[in-house]
């Protein structure tokens, strides 16, 4: 990760996914968001790992975006 470019990564816990189509819709929807470089959703671990541009997104906005889709998303304990 290069802090100068504002690239950051975060893992968000996502509840409520039960199948691969849930995983795919989240990947597609969030992947479309401005400032999201890459997203990987794990059904087993119930997490979404997102690589994003911290100038355009922040953990809160990403969590909000997943929550908006109807999945329970929560941020890990952050100690900046």
């Amino acid at each position, binding site marked *: 990760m290069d802090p100068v470019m504002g690239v950051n990564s975060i893992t968000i816990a996502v509840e409520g996914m039960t199948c691969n189509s*849930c995983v795919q819709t989240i990947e597609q929807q969030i992947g479309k968001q401005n400032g999201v470089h890459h997203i990987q959703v794990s059904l087993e671990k119930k997490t979404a790992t997102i690589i994003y541009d911290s100038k355009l997104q922040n953990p809160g906005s990403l969590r909000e975006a997943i929550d908006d889709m109807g*999945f329970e998303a929560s941020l890990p304990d952050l100690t900046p």
Partner: protein
Amino acid sequence: MPKHEFSVDMTCEGCSNAVTRVLNKLGGVQFDIDLPNKKVCIDSEHSVETLLETLKKTGKATTYLGTK
């Protein structure tokens, strides 16, 4: 109140739960979800556009079928 019928491409419990959550967030709606037939029947004062927008938030293919 008019009953609007929508077709939402839901494939599993998780999908229908997501629809439930977004509709509850919108508020002022009463709805039935028919998962096997991929249909959502909504009883609400909201306009069809608002409901459609809300359903589309889930990222599923959604179409308006008409009033019932």
